[in-house]
Every structure is written in C-alpha cells, then in structure tokens.
C-alpha cells in the first residue's frame, strides 16, 4: 500500500530524512517511532504531499506522490499533530467543508458525517461549535474528518499528544476498530506503550535514519527479553538478557541496586541509540 524508496529530505544544512526505504502492506497498523526531531513528521508531510522530498520516490496505492499528488491525496486521510479544526464552525460544518474539498456530493457527505460522527461518539455534539469541545473530542473529530472520504491509508501524526490517560486509551480503541475495518494506518508516536499496544510492525527512526524495523515482539526478542536496570554512580544502566535466570544471576552479583523486568520497545530504542525516545 505504501512503498517508499530512498526518500531523503534536506532543509538547507540539515538532513531531516536519510535514504528511507519502507514498504507497508494494505491493512497493516504501522508504528513509526522516534524522539522529537527524528524525522517522523517530515516523513508524514512528504507522504501526504505537504512537503517535497529532496530525492527518492514514494507511492501510495500505486500512485506516485510526486508525479500525481492529487491522485495520491484522494487515497489518504491525515490527522496532523496540531489541531487544525475550524473553531468557529460546528462539527458537522467542519466535516462538510472537508467533504467538499474531496469532491464529495452534499448528500454523500451528510450520510458519511452521520456515520463517522456516530463512530467517534460525537453525533450528539454535531451542531456544537468546535471551540467548546475538549481536547479528546477535537482529536476524535479530526479522526472522523480524516475518515469521511473513506481513505485507504490513514496517516496519524502523534494523535494522542496532549490527551490524558483515559482519553488516550479511548482513542486507541477507536484506532483498533478503524484498522479492523480494513484501513491501513501509519501512526507516528513517541509513546512506546502506544506502539506496542496497537501496531503490527514498528519502524524506529533516529536522526532521520530508520534503525530498526520489525514486529514489536521480534524487536524486543532481538534486544533481549529481560532487562536488569542497575542504578550506579554513573546513573542508570540497562543490561539485556534472553532469559530470566541469567538476568537474575547478573542482578544478584551486583553491589548496586538492580531491578529485573521485562523488556519493552523503549529498551530496544535505548539499546540501539543510547538515548530515551522522549529525550
């Protein structure tokens, strides 16, 4: 569904993305992980034709995003990082404008609006001005808007930023349902737990380069399923082990405080880059 070959983006002296090659299958829930400034948003902007790559190619559903951007855009829905709803207008009016932008007829827009507002639980608030919505409601409305024209691929750039734990979990449930209905989802996030819970496969991006790509469980297994955190004079150090027994023996041998736990994607990132994802 998404085929990216050697995609590079340079902004004057900064290289935001370096020869990214990535293939995402139809119906896949793909997580794109990395710290702030890693190049995640740049990738989404290029794939949604909001920015041009310096070199390389990308195709969405067989449409070249550079040669036929308008055709490629018809296949995508975008939930950007920043809330970009029209605050003066109601939820229904926001969706009407979106539908018209995508060339839909008014009757189809009305039908789809009812469906997706109901799907995200906002139908009772359809006539309210968006400015009165909570952060979570605005995010859900942005998802409904992105789905209005039934795109084949949904790009979501940090959709849970600014949401509380409950709002985030509600949104996760929604995203799972959307994916089950057949949409391919490209999710960028720096919340490790989010990627682990939702994604079939994750790519880890660091300083514009893809440094790992696999299923979350496979990445964790490759790094070491068990971690021993040692709190020494030089700070926290994590040690990786494939089994609990070896990890236990290592922890017992240390004079410093050592804790044993299951590894997660954050540990994979730390092992690969030496830094935390949220750094």
């Amino acid at each position, binding site marked *: 569904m998404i085929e990216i070959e050697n995609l590079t983006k340079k902004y004057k002296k900064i290289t935001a993305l370096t020869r990214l090659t990535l293939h995402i299958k139809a119906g896949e829930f793909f997580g794109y992980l990395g710290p702030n400034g890693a190049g995640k948003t740049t990738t989404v902007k290029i794939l949604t034709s909001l920015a041009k790559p310096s070199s390389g190619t990308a195709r969405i559903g067989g449409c070249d995003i550079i040669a036929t*951007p308008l055709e490629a855009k018809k296949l995508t829905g975008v939930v950007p990082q920043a809330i970009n*709803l029209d605050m003066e207008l109601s939820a229904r009016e926001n969706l009407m404008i979106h539908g018209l932008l995508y060339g839909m007829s008014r009757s189809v827009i009305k039908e789809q609006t009812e469906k997706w507002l109901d799907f995200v639980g906002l139908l009772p608030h359809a006539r309210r001005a968006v400015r009165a919505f909570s952060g979570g409601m605005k995010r859900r409305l942005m998802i409904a808007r992105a789905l209005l024209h039934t795109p084949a691929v949904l790009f979501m750039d940090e959709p849970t930023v600014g949401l509380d734990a409950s709002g985030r979990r509600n949104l996760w449930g929604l995203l799972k349902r959307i994916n089950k209905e057949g949409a391919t989802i490209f999710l960028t996030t720096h919340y490790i737990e989010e990627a682990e819970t939702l994604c079939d496969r994750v790519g880890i991006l660091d300083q514009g380069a893809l440094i790992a790509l696999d299923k979350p469980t496979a990445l964790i297994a490759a790094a070491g399923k068990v971690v021993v955190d040692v709190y020494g004079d030089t700070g926290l150090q994590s040690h990786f082990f494939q089994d609990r027994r070896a990890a236990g023996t290592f922890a017992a041998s240390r004079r410093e405080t050592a804790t044993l736990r299951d590894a997660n994607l954050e540990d994979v990132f730390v092992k690969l880059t030496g830094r935390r994802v949220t750094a």
Partner: protein
Amino acid sequence: MRGFLGIFSREIMIIRKRFFKMLISFSVTPLLYLIAFGWGLGHKMTVEGVPYISFLLPGLIAMSSMSRSFAISSEINIARFYWHIFEEFQAAPVSNLAIASGEVLGGILRGFFASFIIIILAFLFHVKIHLNVFLFLAILGNTFTFSSLAIITSMLVRSHADQSMLNNFIITPMAFLCGTVFSLKALPGWAAGFIQLLPLSPATKAIRASALGHPMPWIATGSVFACGIVFFILGIVAIRGARE
C-alpha cells in the same frame, strides 16, 4: 477546480456566523467619514463639479471594498499560522488554482458586502448614487484585484506582525491617497502621476464615474482587471511556493 466549493463554502459559513459583527464593523468607518466629511463639509463645497458628499461616497466604496477584500490576507494568515486550517486545504486533493479561486471569491464577497453597506448609507444620507451594471463591474474589478493581492501577501509573510506592517505601509496609504477622499487634480503633477500607477486609483476613477452616472472610463476599468489577473496568477504561484 475540484475542492473550490469547499474553500468558498467555508467563507460563506464564516460570513454567516459573523454577519452582524461584520455588518457593524463594516459600517463604522464609512459612517464616521460620512458624518465628519459628508455632513460637515459635504454640502458647503464642491469637488470636480459635484457636492463633496457625492464625490466622497464612491471613494468610500472604493476604499472600503479594497480594504475588506484585502482583509482575507489576515484571515488566511490566522488560518495558516494560528489555526493551521490552511494545512487541511493543502493536504486535500485541491489544486492551487482552486484554493486561489475559493479565497478570492470569498474576498470579492466581503468587498461587495462592504460596498452594499455604503450604498445603503448613501440612501440614508440622501446622497444620489447611480446603481448600474458598470458600478458593480468596477467594484468587481477592485475586489478581484485586492483579493488576489491578499493571496500573494498572505503566502509571502511569515507572521502576523509582517501582515500588519504590509497593511500599514501599503494598504493604508493607498486607501487615503488614491483619489478616494480628495481629487488627484489637487496634487502636483509628479505626485498625481505616481499615485495613478497604484491599482486603487483607476478603480476609484471607475467606481466614481459609474456612481455619478458619468461615462465609464474603460481604460481605467480594463487596467484594474489586468492588474487583478496578474495578481491572481502570482497568487497561484505564491500558493505553490508556500506548500514547501
């Protein structure tokens, strides 16, 4: 032109929501002008052979329709930098031509709205004004030109501060100098010659001539539209540039 309707419909929805606020804010400045310069001086002096209030009113239409259609520039900036709504337009399968057309038509609509308010004020102040197709053609040329200019500037500026600087240094001087409130014949030849090169001057000339029932100055009207077409094309180019 797919998607043009989306952009224009948004303008209509916004105007509908703000109708009374716009009605009041669009009325205040021309009303003050009419009271201060119209009532105060209007019947006591003549300019270019007509009472000053009759001379002033078409100038106010030119001034107000220009500034209101150009004001979409600030609206677009707010949509770009503050609400990020413009990103939604850019992410949609909408051509630059459709974006420019939708926004410009929104600007034209605002300019006409402002013009109609002044025409209503004219009746309230018992100022005779000739409502004819040429008047609306001249207003159309003026609003088209300045809406298109607004597209260019809104794509080039980097912040709200830049936008306000443009208003202060370009729009405000033009609003006062281009024959709107006084006759350009009163100026030295070199100054009048320079001011006549500014796009509001021929627009004011065309609006005044048609509003006073004089023959339409076709060269002035044509030059307003020509200027508008150039600005419109440059506006499309500016939108393309802003995508990066």
